[in-house]
């Protein structure tokens, strides 16, 4: 099953806030995944002065299909109630409804099937909301966008978002979303002084420094401090 890699790359996060922020990120993303029916195998968050990162392993590629029943009017109910029931459930006629008996009489029941969506699309909706509502103790605005109300607030200026989703053995897909003009992508940046180059995340894993798997993600060394 596919893995999610998320990295939020910013200017220096106050030291006292880093560990909790990593925990918050893991909790918020995984809670939301589960709420969307995406039960994962494992998750781990990382923090450094300039990064919050998260890997979630073993996410199903699709949400399960959802089947729900909805109780409608009694048999013989006025036409207005029947029409309202058909409209609300999307049934073409009462022939498509089941009939269920209980103590109060016979009722129409609609079976509604909601097909699961691709996990990557669900994640692309979840992540920008989490970023916009992230519980920093104090957050700030910056740059030209701060001229307008509703601009993103973050603990310090946020510069890049890396978000990929895919199997460990394959080239992952970028989770496509943007927050306040920052497009999620597959590129991250090195340590400010030690390794300032840009690099590309080939798979959705953060690896330990000792790991030399050829396809390991090239997140630079400061991402590993808390691994």
């Amino acid at each position: 099953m596919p893995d999610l890699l998320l990295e939020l790359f910013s200017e220096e996060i106050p030291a006292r806030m880093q560990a909790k922020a990593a925990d918050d990120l893991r909790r918020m993303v995984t809670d939301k995944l589960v709420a969307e029916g995406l039960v994962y195998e494992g998750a781990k968050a990382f923090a450094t002065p300039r990064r919050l990162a998260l890997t979630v392993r073993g996410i199903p590629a699709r949400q399960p299909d959802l089947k729900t029943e909805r109780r409608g009017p009694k048999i013989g109910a006025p036409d207005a109630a029947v029409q309202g029931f058909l409209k609300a459930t999307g049934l073409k006629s009462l022939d498509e409804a089941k009939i269920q008996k209980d103590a109060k009489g016979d009722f129409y029941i609609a079976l509604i099937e909601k097909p699961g969506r691709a996990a990557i699309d669900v994640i692309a909706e979840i992540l920008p909301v989490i970023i916009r509502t992230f519980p920093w103790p104090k957050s700030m605005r910056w740059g030209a966008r701060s001229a307008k109300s509703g601009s993103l607030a973050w603990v310090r200026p946020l510069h890049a978002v890396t978000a990929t989703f895919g199997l460990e053995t394959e080239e992952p897909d970028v989770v496509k979303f943007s927050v306040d003009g920052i497009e999620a992508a597959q590129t991250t940046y090195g340590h400010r002084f030690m390794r300032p180059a840009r690099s590309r995340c080939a798979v959705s894993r953060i690896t330990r420094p000792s790991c030399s798997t050829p396809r390991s993600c090239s997140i630079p060394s400061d991402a590993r401090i808390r691994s």
Partner: protein
Amino acid sequence: MDALPDHMRPERSFQGFILALQRFWAEQGCVILQPYDMEMGAGTFHPATTLRALGPKPWNAAYVQPSRRPKDGRYGENPNRLQHYYQFQVIMKPSPPNLQELYLKSLAAIGIDAAVHDIRFVEDDWESPTLGAWGLGWECWCDGMEVSQFTYFQQVAGVECAPVAGELTYGLERLAMYVQGVDRVYDLNFNGREGAEKVTYGDVFLQAEQEYSRHNFEYADTAMLFEQFRMAEEACRKYLASGWREGGNQKKEHLMALPAYDQCIKASHVFNLLDARGVISVTERQSYIGRVRDLAKACGEAWIHTETGRAV
């Protein structure tokens, strides 16, 4: 840098150090201003920062500001503490995305290589109760010593910054001492010359530190200062009240924000002197700070109704 004569190199002379910073920020598109001609506690008080941080129009400036902290005088006997010192101030509005990189490059321009020294950005939330201002950012450490402050202004003079300006403040003496490798501020080489031609920071400022310490702590005329505070406060309010006009399109505009703000600066410095003389009690202190803040806020409000400060 190689073309510079030795005596102008930032690691050899205090003046060369200042010039190197000015040149660097000029190259980034900043207007290089001269110090404001009034006594103030920090470069942030300069209207080029306080007032220009407000309003939507872009503004990039850098300048040296002599900063007076009457309480910090030590009669010239402390190797680090001064009642008059220099801040180098940079303001960029809106804050550019690479402001941190520019700051690090500016350190390189004065001889501090980030690959060799341990540079850190350490949490520091800035607040000025007298200016009604706050921002988030860092104190910048070089090998464990605070050498600059880096702030993204969120609010100044009670007005929300939109867009946000980035502000850098370098403690010039401290940085220059580090770069020159001296332990006592008065030993700084000021002009980069050696032997008989050498002028030190002490040659320029030691006597002033001694005299002003005496003045600030012992002799400053408190009756006059109380009166000056009252007069500055009154004048500020008077200029603010007289400056409002009905502009075109029924918009209110203000025509005297700058002269009014000068009186706010004046009141703030006079308060600092009174504070150093020890004639203001703890409870009075809060009230004086509040009175200066009220002036600053009223000036900010006026400024955003001027030609330069208003929204288009």
